């Protein structure tokens, strides 16, 4: 059962990581245009780098 001592913190850490990433994407406005994002991958044009905010 000792393995739980490691596994539970690890799983919670991974979960927190996911949460932090979600909050980050949210703040960056990545959910503002889901329709456009879905279509943009079909376009042959791409950016060299992300837009400067």
């Amino acid at each position, binding site marked *: *059962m000792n393995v*739980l001592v490691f596994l*539970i913190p690890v*799983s*919670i850490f991974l*979960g927190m990581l*996911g*949460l932090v990433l*979600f*909050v980050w994407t*949210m703040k960056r406005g990545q*959910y*503002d*245009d*889901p*329709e*456009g994002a879905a*279509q*943009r*991958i*079909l*376009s*042959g*044009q791409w*950016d*060299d*780098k*992300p*837009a*400067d905010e």
Partner: protein
Amino acid sequence: MAAPVSACPACDAAALAETTAGRGFAGNGGEGKRIMLSLPTAHCAACIVGVEGGLATQPGVRSARVNLTLKRATVEADEDVEPQALADYLTSIGFEAYELDAGALSATATDKRSKDLLMRLGVAFFGMMNVMLLSVAVWSGASDATRDMFHWVSAGIALPIVAFSAQPFFISAWSALRVKRLNMDVPISLAILLASGMSVYEVMNHGENAYFDAAISLTMFLLAGRYLDQRTRAVARSAAEELAALEVPRAHRLTGEGEEVVPVAELRVGDVVRVTPGNRVPVDGMVETGESEVDRSLLTGESLPVFAGPGMMLNAGEANLTGPLTLRVAAAGKDSSLHRMADLVAIAETARNKYTSLADKAAAIYAPVVHLVALAAFVVWLVITGGDVRHALNIAVAVLIITCPCALGLAVPAVTTAASGRLFKRGMLLKSATAMERLAEVDHVVFDKTGTLTEGNPTPDNLSDHTDADMAVAVALAQGSSHPLARAIAGQAGVVPAPVSAVREVPGHGIEALWQGQEVRLGRAEWVGANQIGRTATYLKIGKRPAVAFTFTDALREGADEAVAALTAAGYGVTLVSGDAEAAVRDVAHRLGITDYRAGMLPEGKVAVLETLAAHGKRVLMVGDGLNDTAALAAAHVSISPASALEAARVVSDIVMLGKSLAPLPDTLATAKKATRRIKENFGVAVVYNAVSIPLALIGLATPLSAALAMSTSSIIVSLNALRLRAK
């Protein structure tokens, strides 16, 4: 992002313009400005690339970004870039585009609220997944100290997350309770709070059952429903704001020194404004100088242009056709006829019966029933067990959780999201939350004529009656004017214009020229000396010969015949009411196969027609665009107006048709019917689910595992049922 403007002439020009042009748009000073364009037809990757690429080639544009969800482009541009020029350019390369008033599109509270909900939803989802993982271990047989530890870890995750994510429910429940009312959020909040509190108590006493996962998944499913609901409304609302922003209200004011462009709101009575041909009259005013013809179709439904000369009163909303006019403002802003009409409509709207949506009806039954059942369970078990409060409370909590309105909370939003998404793709924008349900009840459709069934663009219909020589002269004259009738004649292919000289347009009357030494005229009947015939027509006079008439019919709006045919075939009653003259209305009715038509209707007459229909038990859908339709639009059971309609008409309509074609109309009605059926099916699912699960909970058989399973299954069934709407 690729920097679109590296072409230096543009930069130089822009820099120069910034220093020389003193007039600045409200906003970021010399920093450039943000322009919003509406793109009602954008729908694919190629559109994004086309629009962004196209805008990037325009001088002064720094960057352009298309938002396909909102069908809108945001352009960062230099100060001197004219939004209208960009919109015109996009239209010329094949993307319908309109200028938007960026001021009216302030970053909205609606937008913030969706973001807030999404954040809470994401956090709840994270919590649900993690607590579920721990719960699975407990369900698989963890016991004693291990189980207690898992429960404590669950509590550590669940409690802060519930406190954060479930706030919208707590707030809404509290505000309902404060005014002594029950809403759907009261049982929800109670279930979440009791489940969390009870679980903490159980864990402290090394109990077997903890409902942390239930509390948190309840929160998450309900937030999902709330978010979908919010998003549907946010898209509709932002599009509605967009429509309001479509009419960028500016006027050309004449001052001592010259002419300046000012917002209409700044005009005062007594100011003099100039209205160039092709533009709408911005305010009510008296013509000072100039002669022209004005198109009143949006206000009255008349399809014939009216002569305008000095001394005549013009109303805001009329379109100037041929000559420049100067107007002295007689009423501006709140006093103008447009605003007065809008006030009338506001009164009609408040008088309109409040419609109770299916969701409200369900909530009104649901909330008290759930509370009573849970309370009954508590009391009965208290008696059975002889005063075991803990056991009785456990059962009551299980009842509250298991009757959780997950399915109920998702039943309506999931369907309306799917349905309005489908309608939005077809260019139908639902502005009102209950529009879908009211649309499903419709059994009679009333159309306006000018601008709704017809495009309001005349097309000549008796060209073959004229000799080639007459045609050649007519086309040559027509090329000298931008009047809609003249343009329709000039647009005739295959006619070689006759050589005419000394072409002169007499605004408000017509065009005259010399041809083979004779005077030739094309224009109004009294001006060329012809007998007026009772139809839309222009008259050609060559020398001393009697004048000949070119008659016009108004071209039907795209898809009008299909729509009317499909509606009739589907058993809807169809009526045409118009403010136009009998002959023109009869003509359109015959072409579309509408047998029931009324001509020469005043706004009150239209309302009376609707009231008569309603008195006969009909649920009427009104489709109209003019100012004379607004009262009727407000009086109808549900109403649709095209995007080209006047703002007042769009404001009172429940649905705005963004595209040009009427063809999606029958499908809209069918989709609404289907959506309402799905909502009812979903309620059915929820009822069946409760009928099975409540007895189980009441006799104390509900475990956290069965609660979690039941909750998830019913929510998924309901969502999948809603998704069926998207198919086809």
